[in-house]
């Protein structure tokens, strides 16, 4: 096996497909994992639609929108990192991976600011919940699901940031470049999945009857 990045060993296409098939199946399990929360959300929202609309208006939709933009941009840098890896631009890959990790970390930072604002407003069920307006029960259910769903998402994203940073560090070592590219491809699938979950969370949390 060669260390030169332009020489691809014969079994690479086979290994590449095997590894990404494994990742796709893992992502299928993740869909079912998050599916429970989406079902719970649907169930609770159908029980009191106006309550969920009222609760949604209490969220910080601008922070959510900024975070959506950050995460979509990180998916772009991740996709570019995977593509430039297969094209053999190692230095570019490292920079793109760091950009991806940075954007992911920025998302988590914004999320923490948001959690802090919700704590200040007394919207954290079980720990600090002071909301007593109309639909108080539905608002509480909404924010319970909000914290569970965004929390599980943030845990996934944190793992993603750690793995991307780890790969960027490993990529400085020029041996086994092909293995790195396979890893990057699988990591890219994971990253886009976490991004995709957010695409569904964003309207469900921030945009419920926003303009009524």
């Amino acid at each position, binding site marked *: 096996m060669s260390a030169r990045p332009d020489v691809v060993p014969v079994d690479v296409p*086979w290994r590449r*497909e*095997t590894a990404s*098939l*494994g990742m796709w*199946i*893992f992502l*299928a*399990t*993740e869909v*079912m*994992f*998050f*599916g*429970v*929360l989406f*079902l*719970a959300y649907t*169930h*609770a929202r159908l*029980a*009191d639609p106006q309550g969920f609309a009222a609760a949604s208006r209490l969220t910080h939709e601008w922070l959510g929108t900024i975070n959506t933009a950050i995460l979509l941009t990180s998916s772009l840098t991740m996709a570019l990192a995977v593509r430039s890896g297969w094209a053999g631009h190692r230095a570019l890959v490292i920079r793109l991976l760091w950009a991806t990790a940075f954007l992911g970390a920025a998302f988590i930072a914004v999320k923490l600011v948001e959690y802090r604002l919700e704590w200040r407003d007394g919207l954290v*069920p*079980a*720990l600090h919940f002071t909301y007593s307006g109309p639909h108080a*029960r*539905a608002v*509480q*259910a909404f924010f*319970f*699901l909000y914290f*569970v769903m965004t929390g599980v998402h943030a845990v996934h994203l944190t793992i993603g940031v750690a793995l991307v940073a780890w790969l960027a560090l490993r990529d400085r070592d020029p041996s086994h470049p092909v293995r790195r590219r396979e890893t990057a491809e699988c990591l890219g699938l994971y990253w886009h999945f976490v991004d995709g979950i957010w695409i569904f969370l964003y309207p469900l949390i921030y945009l419920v009857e926003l303009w009524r």
Partner: protein
Amino acid sequence: MSAAAIPVPTAPRESFLTEGYTIASWLTTRDHKRIAILYAIAITLFFFLGGAAAALIRIELVTPRGDLVTADTYNKLFTIHGVVMVWFFLIPSIPATLGNFLVPLMIGSREVAFPRLNLLSWYIYVLGGIFTVAMLVAGGVDTGWTFYTPFSTMFSNTHVVWAAAGVFIVGFSSILTGLNFIVTVHRMRAPGMTWFRLPLFVWALYATSLILVLATPVLAMTLTLIVIERVLHIGIFDPALGGDPLLFQHLFWFYSHPAVYIMVLPAMGVVSEMITCFARKRIFGYRFMAYAILGIAAFGFLVWGHHMFVSGQSVYAGMVFSMLSMMVAVPSAIKVFNWTATLYKGSIVFTAPMLYALGFVGLFTIGGMTGIYLATLAADVHLTDTYFVIAHFHSIMVGGSVMAYLGGIHYWWPKITGRRYSEAWGRVAAIVIFFGFNLTFFPQYLLGYLGMPRRYHEYAPDLQVLNVLSSGGASILAVGYLLPLLYLGWSLFKGPPAGPNPWNAKGLEWTTDSPPPKENFREPPLVTEPPYAYDPEHPER
């Protein structure tokens, strides 16, 4: 041919067992065959732990009064029996031991697709086991294996969080095993091993793996929500907050009904291998058998509501779930009929594995037919939560899955260890288990029909005769389960060498040494014939 002309098999000099003798060489192995043996040891320990709890339950039920254990202890006993047997024995039993050992061998591969992940799933299993044992030592849990809310979230004073954590963790071991098998079957087949040349055992494991990866995460998240609700006293299952305990039951059974098929599909695969081998015939309707396996796996996802007929779900939902549940009987019946048709005009040899296989077919049929009673909406109102349900699912789980697991262990024992066991003792144990099983569970069908509810440590005095019969059967069953430990243990050290193919069976695993070398095959195999080519004069239909 004179007896002297038959070559006496000798043990191969090198095998996966001789690759290293230290404990570290086992605990760091990436060889799927060694990982299978690690699993076999771990699940055997849990089998006897769960069995001990069952023994105490049956001893308590010898008398109508609750005189051996208190009601609280009894609740903990049936909970630990259920949790251990379902998640730490039955679900990993055939897939993680026989499946791990055999899937790569059967498809002609050197290894599974992700060997390191395979070892990781064993460690995750052990970690989940440690949590469960710690929960037991700390005082147990009394919710039943179903963790129904609001009891588990608001009222139980026992270690629900530890128990849920143990099950949550072991679930990831299942997921990773399933993922590994799917990718292995897709990507690692030998040249010529087309999909319709796969042994039915591999088809069964493939379908099981699909259920493992799609259903288990639902349980994981549901248990997470239980733990959050129990710790923070807020959640989606609490009606006081607009939540719904029924939602928990839907989510739980969305996993736990397909889990029944996780337990029984691999058993069907094992039985298909043994019946063809010992009837010396090609399996009847191979393609239909493969489609039936996939059909059961798919339908299995659509029937969970039959666990909730009396839980207050809408009557229309009940009717739909009842109808769908009956439809699972169709592919199941295809399998039973095809096994029977395979036996027809076969040259049947009643070896120990074959006795287990035939026991499986009979008991699975009884378990399946009583399942139709329970899927019938009106009958279920009378039978639900009685011993009829207990007897029904034990027919499938114990009469079906455990029988098939033990049959498979005997059938592939010469391949795994390279040694033969005592056929006579094997047959005795199979018959003792079959007899013990029926004496344990037939009285329970009657008890359930008479209205004895499950999960009570006391009962009406006129039900004592049937309960004593059942407990007597359980003690025979216990003897039957201890016997293989003795003669298989003896075989492990003293058994005569088996040779590559002691049963004269078809299938790639029988073309290599027993025990197989580390790389499975000395030469990469090339597959040129259909599966189960026992009667070459009848070409592939």
